């Protein structure tokens, strides 16, 4: 097995979203999987409040945002700080035709999984060729 490929949490800028909360916003790392009948978006959003994760699909743009409450350590002194804590937000443009009404999402162990079913017109079809 490989060792974990090292990737850092990086900051993001969402020009289309106006924020009223203070604090840093991070860009979640994602895997995107294409299957015959759906796209799967798997995003790392550790520490999020499950009921404050928003997923929007509009005009071919998928946006996911998750609110991450600060993790206060009162009376403790920081010895090492390798990452920051803040909300996650990221937008994707999706060229496939997606049935927006059937998008489902789950949040387990800090991982957000979105199922984006393709519209029937976008699914691959096997065309039977008849011989005369």
């Amino acid at each position, binding site marked *: 097995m490989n060792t974990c490929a090292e*990737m850092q949490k*990086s900051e993001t800028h969402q020009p289309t979203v106006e924020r009223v909360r203070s604090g840093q916003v991070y860009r979640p*790392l994602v*895997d995107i999987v294409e299957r015959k009948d759906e796209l799967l978006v798997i995003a790392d959003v550790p*520490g999020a409040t499950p009921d404050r994760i928003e997923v929007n699909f509009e005009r071919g743009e998928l946006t996911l945002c998750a609110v991450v409450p600060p993790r206060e350590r009162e009376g403790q002194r920081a010895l090492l700080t390798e990452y920051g804590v803040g909300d996650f937000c990221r937008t994707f443009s999706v060229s496939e035709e997606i049935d927006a009404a059937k998008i489902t999402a789950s*949040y387990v162990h800090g991982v957000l999984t979105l199922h984006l079913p393709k519209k029937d017109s976008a699914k691959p079809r096997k065309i039977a060729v008849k011989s005369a």
Partner: protein
Amino acid sequence: MLTHRLNPFAPFPAVRRELDRVFESVFGNGAVSGAAPAYPALNVWEDGGAFTIEAEIPGVELSDIEVQVAGADVTIKGTRRPAVEGETTMLREERPTGTFSRTLTFPVAVVADQVEATMKNGVLVIRLPKSPEATARKIQIKSN
């Protein structure tokens, strides 16, 4: 536009020096200058009685994480499996998978059998009580 995260609360130089001393072995995982950072990234705090390590390891359950304590050395090990297995077309693959291991050396020993680890929504928190010998060194000075 992506930028690497900068820590606005970067420790003062004096603290930094201390950290370098305390954690000089932390980065000794064979990393060379310019190498990718070690996984997982760690935040560490201390109070009078304990050290606390926090790491974001989404997709991994507590039962898949091993914490080893040997005196002042604490090692966190585990494996992150791919979210989807089998025959698939990966359009994007950013989430790291595989085995990971990091070792921290603390300035004092920790009490191995009192170490507590919790995992919630992909955030691992390990509390490591300092050994009593280490915390009993505070000397009271009386004035007349």
